[in-house]
């Protein structure tokens, strides 16, 4: 974790903005209410900003417009039913939501899925990552005014969704995991088709690099905008590409012991030292490429065997608490599941979603920026409403 000059400058600017807020602010400003139905907020986030001209004096994000009460609902459902529910937290990569939960449930059940199931989980996990981040890569352009890339993103994402549908039966919300394994095995010919689609994904990444990353205007809009110093970001709990763009070399897939198959593959965790919007975009682009690489490797090394473990013949889940987290496309996603030993579902299911923490830095980072940069920063932090509000 090295502190670069832009990070330091951003920190100083933040402090200055705060001082200005505390001691100087007596101008005639305008309060602008962005959201909850605003094109920039990817849904229903609401940000109340106080403007001085076009400069933001302070910003107060107000979330909860998509709060659906997952934690309470999980308490009145079985473990098997909860996967249906948690699919819908981060709706762009639904499969990635159910994996950590099912791993936590398996820890409580004291079973472990067979290797093939774990490999397929990892495989679909990475495909979910591609399905998620491709949309980000295109959507970033729309937020900055270039409308075409998002159409390419939707076009190439469709191939990945088709594959997910072929394997799981659900194009969007697979609900494919079971405690102790998977619902079904992969269909015939799926692996070959997947590898063909991964070439398309790589092509898409190259296209985005040409269309957006190499565009001078895009670069001018992104560079130096929304710089997050690593220590501040960590204090706010930023994770995933947001914190890797600030130079923190931390990826749960690589750094934590896991039953999933990442440890058997050869891949790289990308970091960037700038910590600005451009770095976040760049890191995500590289991550998509790495994910495509991972999918290829996982397809090659897929072990044979059963996809479901032998489940112990008991109806009660032993008492205990389990914490499982994974590196989801948006950042760290974790489930703290408590079992009370009863026949029902989880006694308590704390869902640690990435976007909630990622967005909580907004009041800090939006001070002193211009209105167009608000949009840049919002998009580059990349949140999904369901992941914020749960």
């Amino acid at each position, binding site marked *: *974790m090295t502190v670069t000059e832009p990070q330091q400058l951003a920190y100083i600017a933040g402090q200055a903005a705060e001082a200005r807020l505390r001691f100087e602010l007596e101008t005639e400003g305008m309060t602008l209410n962005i959201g909850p139905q605003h094109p920039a907020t990817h849904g229903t986030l609401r940000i109340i900003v106080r403007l001085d001209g076009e400069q933001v004096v302070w910003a107060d994000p*107000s*979330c*909860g417009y998509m*709060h659906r*009460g997952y*934690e*309470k609902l999980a308490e*009145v459902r*079985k473990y098997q039913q909860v996967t249906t529910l948690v699919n819908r937290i981060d709706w762009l990569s639904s499969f990635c939501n159910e994996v950590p939960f099912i791993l936590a449930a398996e*820890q409580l059940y*004291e079973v472990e899925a067979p290797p093939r199931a774990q490999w397929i989980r990892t495989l679909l996990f990475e495909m979910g990552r591609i399905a998620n981040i491709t949309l980000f890569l295109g959507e970033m352009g729309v937020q900055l005014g270039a409308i075409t890339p998002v159409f390419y993103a939707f076009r190439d994402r469709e191939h990945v969704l088709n594959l997910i549908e072929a394997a799981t039966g659900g194009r969007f919300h697979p609900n494919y995991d079971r405690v102790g394994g998977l619902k079904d095995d992969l269909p015939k010919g799926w692996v070959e088709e997947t590898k063909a689609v991964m070439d398309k994904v790589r092509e898409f990444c190259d296209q985005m690099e040409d269309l957006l990353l190499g565009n001078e205007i895009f670069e001018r809009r992104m560079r130096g905008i929304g710089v997050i110093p690593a*220590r*501040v970001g*960590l*204090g*706010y*709990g930023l*994770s995933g590409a947001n914190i890797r763009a600030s130079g*923190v070399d*931390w990826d749960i897939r690589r*750094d*934590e*012991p896991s039953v999933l198959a990442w440890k058997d593959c050869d891949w790289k965790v990308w970091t960037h030292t700038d910590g600005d919007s451009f770095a976040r975009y760049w890191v995500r682009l590289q991550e998509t490429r790495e994910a495509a690489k991972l999918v290829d490797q996982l397809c090659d090394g897929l072990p044979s065997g059963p996809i479901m473990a*032998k*489940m*112990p*013949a*008991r*109806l*009660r889940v*032993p*008492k*205990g*608490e*389990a*914490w499982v*987290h994974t590196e989801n496309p948006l950042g*760290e996603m*974790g489930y*703290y599941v*408590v079992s*009370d*030993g*009863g*026949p*029902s579902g989880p*006694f*308590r299911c*704390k869902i*640690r979603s990435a976007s*909630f*923490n990622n967005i*909580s*830095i907004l009041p*800090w980072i939006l001070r002193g920026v211009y209105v167009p940069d608000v949009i840049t920063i919002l998009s580059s932090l990349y949140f999904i409403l369901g992941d914020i*509000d749960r």
Partner: protein
Amino acid sequence: MSDAPTDDQTEDAAPPPPDPEREELVAALRRDLGDWLIEHVNANGDLWVRVDRKAWLKAGEVLREKHGFDYFCFLSGIDWLNNAELVQRYEQVWDPDAEAAGDGAADEGPYVGGRVAGGDTRFQVFARVYNVQRKLGITLKADLDDANPSVDSWVTVYRGADWHEREAWEMYGFEFAGHPGLRHIYLPVEFEGFPLRKDFALLARVVKPWPGLVDKEPVPGEDEEEGAEEAAPA
């Protein structure tokens, strides 16, 4: 599936060797917190530490400043109330065998037992922080007073705790001393009650209980529906 033995006893019999790195961390914490560090559990490659609620803020400060736990993961609460009545109402017919098994879903005491680093009171606040250099995580817990669940705010230590404390305040009614503004974060301002408390009943389930396995029931009115469709104007 049916012939699998309940082999969890054998697994328990051979606990994994204690993790020296984490033990060391606990020892260091104990030097700073003294008796306020009540209990710790080091299992499954993870670490739970229960501290006294008076030491909640201090524990956070020590972890961040001395041990490099920069990363704030989450902060939330648990309600350990054993609300068996409510639970049974939610259960319905899903698991009839469980009823027959006899030993009952509910424990005897007022609160659910068998927790990791659990306490004696109803409410517990717990948080997780992480050291990204050493790749080490720790879950901190603190018991709160039943009547007045209140604890020091972590906002001064971890700025990210702000929203999490607002959430815990909203969901459980915990008070965080020193928090700049405990406002609603998820729910509308006029919302009444604390949804994640165990005595908060879900209205939809109380009014109309879940019917359970619908496959067992005949589908009612199938003929009538078809008739209605035909009768509808073109």
